[in-house]
């Protein structure tokens, strides 16, 4: 049972991100490097918030303080990686002549760095839980909810996808100077994170439903910002990939 639960939760949380990675990122080395770099930035933000949390703990502050500051630090570091990527763009242009998509479509960089944030944050929240899921212990004997692993996995997935959407929206907002989207990113991040505080009192539905609602809103907004529309979606689903034939003349 424990092993089944382990695999179930692991694939629930990391299956979709894994698919996204394999389909959209794995083929392009530069995207992989940017993914790892953004993961590194997320780690730095976590490190800063942990430092602050260490101080807060000695002052007996509740965990809310740590959560708020870590959300703010994450957004700060998202801004830093935005600056870094925009600066590096000139170099990237040289780097990726073979792959012009990354230059012409700025959303790709945003998507990759958002996914990098999401994957590392999801990993950090779930990996130790998963390691314990294989047993030999079991959850729920003392009146705790035995949905612990399942909800953790669901929320992890939600956060990974949210981070991806936040990444796209955040970069878009800064590029186009649409600060409403920027405010939405920070506020919704804060909101969802604070909502998860209710998990400790096992109000799982009260956490998960709003979190996924925010995900849908943010995801749609990000997709719209990146230029998606019903027609483009339909086109991408129905029409076969086009092959361009190039004639080589000798």
């Amino acid at each position, binding site marked *: 049972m424990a092993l089944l639960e382990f695999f179930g939760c692991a694939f629930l949380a990391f299956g979709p991100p894994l698919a996204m990675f394999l389909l959209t990122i794995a083929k392009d080395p530069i995207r992989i490097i940017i993914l790892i770099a953004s993961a590194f930035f997320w*780690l730095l933000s976590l*490190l800063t918030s942990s430092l602050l949390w260490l101080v807060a703990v000695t002052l007996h502050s509740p*965990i809310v303080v740590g*959560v708020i500051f870590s959300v703010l630090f994450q957004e700060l570091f998202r801004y830093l990686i935005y600056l870094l990527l925009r600066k590096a763009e000139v*170099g990237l242009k040289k780097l990726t002549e*073979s792959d012009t998509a990354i230059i012409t479509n700025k959303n790709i960089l945003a998507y990759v760095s958002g996914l990098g944030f999401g994957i590392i944050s999801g990993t950090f929240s779930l*990996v130790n839980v998963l*390691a314990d899921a294989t047993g030999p212990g079991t959850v729920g004997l003392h009146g705790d909810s035995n949905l612990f692993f399942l909800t953790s996995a669901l929320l*992890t997935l939600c956060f990974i996808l949210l981070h991806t959407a936040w990444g796209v929206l955040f970069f878009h907002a800064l590029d186009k100077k649409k600060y409403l989207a920027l405010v939405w990113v920070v506020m919704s991040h804060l909101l969802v994170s604070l909502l998860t505080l209710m*998990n400790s009192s096992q109000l799982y539905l009260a956490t998960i439903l709003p979190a996924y609602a925010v995900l849908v809103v943010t995801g749609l907004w990000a997709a719209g910002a990146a230029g998606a529309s019903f027609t483009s979606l339909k086109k991408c689903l129905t029409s076969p990939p086009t092959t361009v034939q190039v004639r080589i003349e000798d």
Partner: protein
Amino acid sequence: MSSPRSSTSSNPPENGASLIPNERVPSRSNTNPALQERQQIPRELSRNPVDQDELEDEEELKYGAAHVIKLFVPVSLCMMVVVATISSVTYYTQKGIYLVYTPFHEDSPDTGTKVWNAVANAAILLGVIVVMTVFLIMLYKYRCYKIIHGWLIMSSLMLLFIFAYLYLGEVLRTYNIPLDYISLLFIMWNFGVVGMIAIHWKAPLHLQQAYLIFVAALMALVFIKYLPEWTTWVVLGVISIWDLVAVLSPRGPLRILVETAQSRNEPLFPALIYSSTVAYMAVMATDQSSTSNSTSNNETAANGPRSPTDGGFTPAWNQEAEQRTEARRHRVQAAAAEAPRAAPQPQPVTEEIDDDEEERGIKLGLGDFIFYSVLVGKASSYGDWNTTIACFVAILIGLCLTLLLLAIFRKALPALPISITFGLVFYFATSKLVAPFADSLTAQQVFI
């Protein structure tokens, strides 16, 4: 552990500006005399007019990222083997037996005593490494190739047979799988012989790379098991400093080795280096040599208790390499006539300007693989996956930065210092600072 791991070398084509300097390996034959020769041409000579340079730079960049990934994959694989072993096979985390080079066992509960024990152990180990490195260089300088090759073959033999045998035994024990001695003998013989052939002679590229990765992982496991707790951390720090000195200082042993090899127009010990392209063929000048040296040193150092196994496998290559070198020499002589040869370059930079280059690759010393894996493996031995992942990401980023520097400086660079520094910082930061925070978050299912 020693020195060498210097690593990443790339021989950047002179023009390449990319992250990764690459070496271009001649396509068809390993030994391309021409390459070597070209390497020796001082860069300035070889430089073309600026515009062309720039064009080439751009071209290089395109390949750069792909080569970074070609190193990421094997490094990650090596770490994965080590982490998987450490977290499932308890044998490698049990303490009790130590290398002879680490006489102080940190048994005392007193922190001060532990610290000086660790420092003393690390100093002894480093001393051994330095002595072995110098010894190797003397052998090389006075052309005692037979001894070096014998040494390398012996070590690879022991690593592939004895350590692999112990490893297999422990894995079988952990998973409670019975195996009769006849099958075991059959498996070990085939594994070892194929490994020797793949490492020292020739084999499909992927097979060869797999053996190199496995051997590096085995060596890392040996270090994790036989070094006392704190000593491991001190050794990691000390080694990366030594790496820096040995590769970069004007009289650094690895640098001397590289220069000697260059002036002789021969590849050093190609076996100790992982190449993203065809390894054994690479004619590499600098990096390889440095790496190999280091590896060998490491091996020697490591062997202490059991055997000098570690580095071994690589050496074998040398033999092969020798033959190639000879062939190369012939060609080089021919080539030399046409190309104005500059005085041997003092720098380890290998440049090649090849017309027929087809592949460019980066080389990373196996020693680098070993110490990266030691760091990650050691981090995972405490059971906190967050720490392991943080170290992994930090090392990859360090490797990226090293490759970036490589692209800028285009000479052999030590691959340990940046990565290991990042790894150490993230290990201690994550386990002491982040873990309490992350644990309280996960316990309450709070997501950030």
